[in-house]
């Protein structure tokens, strides 16, 4: 290997941490190769002549005296055509190729480039020789998948007049253009490298405003996240974090999805790998896999690579953002990432902060989420892209006061609080509507008016207040029983129940219910609230609440979520039927009362 420079030797091995001495000019966060098997590692501390290295592979069998090589390069990812549909480990080794080469198990010392060196891509230039370009300008495109046009950008530090550019079939390492003049001339390939721990540059950050539609009703209508925003999903085990993350990865209206399985179950990644190529994206009509990049560093894979996996993921996300795409990144789970930091920190014998986590936990978490955003991309023209980050948090015992959750809540703008009690009742998604919040609701609802209907926000707030009232009334019921409620209050309870059961509850495993368009969400909510309003009129006219709830349309409302996206006009029909049915009750009541009065007068 030509890239190796100085050679040192190991003096200490403790789990994933190796201390080496005698390295030639090591720098912080430089990549090193450890031992005869040349395991990948990264320098994370320097003391005099000694460098502490976190090793991304199992360290069994290493011992003092084994060689360590510096590479003079920081840990970087390869960016270029070939990312889409890939599945990588935490340091961007393609797991499918590792499987081809090494079989069922991940063995050590396997070196594997992130992008295939053999595969040829059809490059179509959009600038021509003689054009002036700056860093970030698009030189040309590659149709990487049926839904994704990969835009080849001028790499960092390069710019000037395009000397030469050629279209055709090339590998990622072939030179496709020469940019700049004289000694500044740069040979540009379709692949660039970027150090994972440094955010990719942009011109300007903008405030997020457009909703990321996920097809999940409780999220889109009640607690929406904006494109370029941040959200977190904390919850105890079994409350459905992973299903929510998968649902967002499946149905969000983003151009590119980055799914990071960080220290989670192996079978969950397998599920994604099996499902995504078969599921069809409702927005493009192509398999979901055609817009997805997976990073899988499962819980039993080396812990240091888990620490790196979120950085690998977000760097790839930023790269697609720079092309002008809307990217959604899911990290499941950030708690495992934090635990990886804790483990390494412990081995470094750093002074611990809360619960053994390093004192810099909060800073690292904040810095990670801050790499999300809606930005004006770095280029000569106007181009806007975004990275939305949704991080799952796994608080021990479901206790939200623990350090990782708290550090996360300080930075994210949307909080979907999962509750195991709801999960036990099989209320899914088990997002507790009383504790969750979204700080994007006002911005996003402005867009609703354009996209769906001006009354959407009002409707949502009304439904929310019903749920709020329900929780207060529940207290009363618990103390003195349901008999103590007035008809009006009974109706509030029933209305809230309908919002909960017929709107919030959504079955991820049902073919129709798994995804609901924004328009259908609006129609469904309007249907429920129409019933509530009409029923209110009926009660004001002294109709028995039992009679109102007994109308057959109630059952139809319960099944309205299963109305398919093609038949949305059924909602109008149903709404009219509800109004008429209740109107009928009111009339009958009025007639009855009139009849009762007649004999009196006679």
């Amino acid at each position, binding site marked *: 290997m030509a890239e190796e420079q100085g050679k040192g030797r190991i003096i200490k091995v403790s789990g994933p941490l190796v201390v080496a001495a005698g390295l030639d000019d090591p720098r912080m966060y430089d990549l090193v190769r450890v031992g005869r098997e040349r395991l990948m590692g990264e320098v994370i501390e320097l003391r005099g002549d000694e460098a502490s290295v976190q090793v991304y592979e199992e360290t069994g069998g290493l011992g*003092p005296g084994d060689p360590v090589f510096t590479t003079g390069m920081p840990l970087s990812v390869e960016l270029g055509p070939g990312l889409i549909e890939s599945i990588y480990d935490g340091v961007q080794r393609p*797991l*499918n190729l590792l499987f081809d080469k*090494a079989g*069922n198990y991940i063995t050590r010392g396997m070196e594997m480039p992130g992008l295939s060196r053999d595969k040829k891509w059809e490059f179509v230039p959009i600038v021509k020789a003689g054009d002036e370009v700056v860093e970030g300008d698009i030189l040309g495109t590659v149709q990487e998948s049926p839904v994704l046009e990969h835009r080849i950008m001028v790499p960092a530090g390069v710019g000037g007049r395009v000397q030469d550019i050629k279209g055709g079939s090339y590998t990622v390492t072939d030179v496709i253009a020469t940019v700049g003049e004289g000694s500044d001339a740069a040979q540009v390939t379709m692949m660039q490298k970027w150090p994972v721990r440094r955010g990719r540059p942009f011109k300007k950050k903008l405030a997020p405003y457009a909703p990321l539609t996920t097809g999940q009703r409780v999220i889109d209508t009640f607690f929406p996240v904006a494109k370029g925003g941040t959200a977190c999903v904390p919850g105890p085990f*079994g409350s459905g974090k992973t299903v929510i993350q998968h649902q967002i990865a499946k149905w969000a209206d983003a151009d590119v999805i980055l799914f990071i399985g960080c220290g989670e179950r*192996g079978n969950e990644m397998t599920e994604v790998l099996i499902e995504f190529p078969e599921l069809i994206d409702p927005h493009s009509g192509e398999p979901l896999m055609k817009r997805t990049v997976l990073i899988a560093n*499962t819980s039993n894979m080396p812990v240091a690579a888990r620490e790196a996996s979120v950085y690998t993921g977000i760097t790839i996300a930023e790269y697609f953002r720079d092309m002008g795409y809307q990217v959604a990144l899911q990290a499941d789970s950030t708690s495992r990432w934090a*635990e990886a930091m804790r483990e390494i920190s412990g081995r470094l014998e750093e002074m611990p902060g809360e619960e053994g986590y390093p004192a810099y936990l909060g800073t690292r978490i904040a810095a990670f989420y801050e790499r999300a955003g809606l930005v004006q991309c770095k280029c000569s023209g106007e181009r806007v892209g975004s990275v939305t980050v949704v991080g799952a948090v796994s608080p021990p015992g479901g206790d939200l006061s623990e350090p990782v959750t708290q550090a996360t809540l300080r930075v994210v703008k949307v909080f979907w609080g999962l509750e195991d009690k709801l999960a036990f*009742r099989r209320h899914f998604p088990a997002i507790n509507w009383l504790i969750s919040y979204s700080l994007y609701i006002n911005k996003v609802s402005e867009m609703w008016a354009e996209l769906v209907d001006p009354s959407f926000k009002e409707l949502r707030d009304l439904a929310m207040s019903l749920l709020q009232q329900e929780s207060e009334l529940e207290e009363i019921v618990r103390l003195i029983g349901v008999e103590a409620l007035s008809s009006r209050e009974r109706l509030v309870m029933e209305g809230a129940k309908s919002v909960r059961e017929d709107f919030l509850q959504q079955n991820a495993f049902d073919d129709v219910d798994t995804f609901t368009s924004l328009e259908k969400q609006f129609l469904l909510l309007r249907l429920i609230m129409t019933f509530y309003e009409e029923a209110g009129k009926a009660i004001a006219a002294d109709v028995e609440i039992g009679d109102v709830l007994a109308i057959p349309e109630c059952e139809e409302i319960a099944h309205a979520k299963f109305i398919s996206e093609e038949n949305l006009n059924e909602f109008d029909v149903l709404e009219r039927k509800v109004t008429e049915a209740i109107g009928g009750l009111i009339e009958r009541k009025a007639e009855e009362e009139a009849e009762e009065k007649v004999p009196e007068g006679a």
Partner: protein
Amino acid sequence: MPIREYMTVRDIVGPLLLVERVQEAKYDELVEIEFPDGSVGLGNVLEVEGDKALIQSFEGTRGLDVSNTRVRFRGRGMELAVSRDILGRVFDGLGRPMDDGPEIIPDERININGSPINPFARDYPTDFIQTGMSAIDGLNPLVRGQKLPIFSGAGLPHSRLAAQIARQSTVLGAEMEFSVVFAAMGITFEDADFFMQEFRSTAAIERSVLFINLADDPAVERIATPRVALTAAEYLAFELGMQVLVILTDMTYYCEALREVSAARKEVPGRRGYPGYLYTDLATIYERAGRIKGESGSITQIPILSMPEDDKTHPIPDLTGYITEGQIILSRELHREGIYPPIDVLPSLSRLKENGIGEGKTREDHSDLSNQLFSAYARGKEAKELAVILGEAALTEEDKLYARFSDEFEDRFVRQGEFEDRTIEETLALGWELLKILPRAELKRVKKDQIEKYME
């Protein structure tokens, strides 16, 4: 690498030995420790720094001294000798025969730490395992290749439950028999003996492998026991193509052994004194379950752990729940009421349920029916709680029906005999039967045609 022997022990602290002036010790290397009385124990290297090696002794340190103890570095990690002949045998916690049988003539020696399965190589678990127990099959079904722990507590019948699962499990339609790999960690002789008798009496011993570390065996040995057992399981499943059911009991003692070593190393503790890497460590055990593409065998894991004070948020059940694909939780309340198996179905969960059931696997109504039973039972429990506070009279007619449903559900659906093996059809029929208690209009989670088909 040759075997190197040293007599340069400097410190002995708890289960740890610090050896000086060692050349070329490797991290995680196997060592033999020769006690002054001539007996030999095993250990492994936890840390090497310069010429010092920190060793954990699997057989404890009683009787060791600094001047006469010999430490031999074996130049390799800890390995298990495997061959087809391990079936029917009983080993100690480190994989050495402890029945009267001969030494194993190995086909292979395999490092007990295994290697992580490449997520790309995994095949998704989709085959329903019929355990013959309604509370599991009907509501929280076990799937071939799943890891589904039993969260139990002191005095609850988790051993009987695990034995019944091992006895009755079949893969529906495929008539596959399970081999059982059983690992005991720190349990009592009586508990271990129960399983051995159980396997003998059902002749399951022929296709079982037992690894036994009892309560009075060295605690640190327990750190190796599940790894040894899973190495045997991987050999049986992926080299011999068998369906393997691994029972690990009791994981709580395993974690305590880990804590003991961590404390002796003066590591910064996480919650309740358990080391910060407990999650990762447990994952390296639990994640060794699964199926692999192109392999006919599989490993299904049933770890058993006793929750201290029945507290589900204790770090051991908590971290386990985050790694495993669900959990079966036993309830002291049901046990007191004399219900066996005392499975608390509401907080229990099988994450792979949706993939293992339905048309072509069990029956098309299975998923909807189980959701209906869940929500009706949950509602019934709530109604009963309300009745405790406000009295029965405060319940609506509907709530009274739900309360009755939940009683009947516990009594007829959850409760069953220890040797009662219900087919999935029987379980589902029972579920529909119970739903008749409720008004038809309340059954919102099942479809109309299912009601017509199965309730009339």
